[in-house]
């Protein structure tokens, strides 16, 4: 049963992805990418990652779409039509084939004795209640065991916000160029 839900969501996700990149109207591309994020969030719930699903639904489908639409309101709404290019396609397919070879060597999906499950994960699960006392293990790992990591991420968000403010709401060099002109000929420029 779980496999079939998995399979159906994966196929929906792939179809939405292909639809999103094959559209030429950018509005449709953005809305489809929002739908893609929502389906990915549903898949995260199936894969037991409720916190990640929550974040993906709020950020990926919500704020990201709003920002993309804000960008779209300032740039042309249609993409220039291009034919399917052979070299990038073959490059993508070649990379995919190589990664499929690597996937063949991956441990079986869902097995409890993979290397991923061997090291720190069991410690978090068994000791979190004793050491942190918070039921949600994701929260305890996020803020206590890996607090440095989250501190770095917060700093990255801070820096990105400052960068956007400087790029979009800062002064430009053009201002310095046009300013003397507007002082000398202000009545004409105000029109």
């Amino acid at each position, binding site marked *: 049963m779980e496999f079939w839900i998995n399979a159906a969501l994966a196929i929906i996700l792939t179809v939405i992805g292909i639809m999103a990149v094959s559209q030429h109207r950018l509005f449709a591309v953005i809305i489809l990418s929002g739908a893609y994020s929502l389906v990915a969030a549903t898949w995260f719930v199936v894969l037991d990652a409720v916190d990640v699903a929550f974040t993906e639904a709020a950020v990926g489908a919500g704020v990201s779409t709003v920002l993309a639409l804000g960008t779209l309101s300032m740039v042309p709404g249609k993409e220039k039509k291009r034919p399917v290019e052979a070299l990038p396609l073959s490059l*993508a397919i070649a990379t995919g084939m190589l990664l499929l070879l690597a996937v063949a060597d991956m441990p079986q999906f869902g097995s*409890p004795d993979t290397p991923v499950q061997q090291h720190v994960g069991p410690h978090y699960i068994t000791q979190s209640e004793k050491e942190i006392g918070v039921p949600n293990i994701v929260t305890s790992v996020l803020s206590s065991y890996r607090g440095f990591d989250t501190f770095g991420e917060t700093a990255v968000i801070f820096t990105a916000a400052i960068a956007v403010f400087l790029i979009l709401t800062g002064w430009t060099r053009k201002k310095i160029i046009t300013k003397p002109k507007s002082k000398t000929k202000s009545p004409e420029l105000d029109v």
Partner: protein
Amino acid sequence: MSSFILTQWNFIIVVGLMMIGFYTVVARGNLLKKMIGLAIFQTSVFIFYISAGKISGGTAPILTGNPDTVYSNPLPHVLILTAIVVGVATTAVGYALIIRIYESFGTIEEDELTEAMNADALTEHEDHISETNR
């Protein structure tokens, strides 16, 4: 072969999504579409991490008090949780740059952008020459 598809289903789909995103980033010339392709690429990596942490028959890593419960690995969840928010913050920087590029060059298609930049460089060069001659 079929057992390979059945057991590694998630990873195969992840590779497929990666290919879609990669092709979009490399081949499509529209900068906004490149960002969307990047988001698809990013999400495929997220699904890869979460799939690697999944244990069949497990539940979400929130302690229930029952000692027999099997929990999926919380570590990939934490890594991806922060990666999603950082991803949207960096994507916003990309969008801001797209807006500034459009305001400066009047286009967000890559090939036209190259032409416009070349033309701009040419006019600047001519300006420079005329200034030095003057």
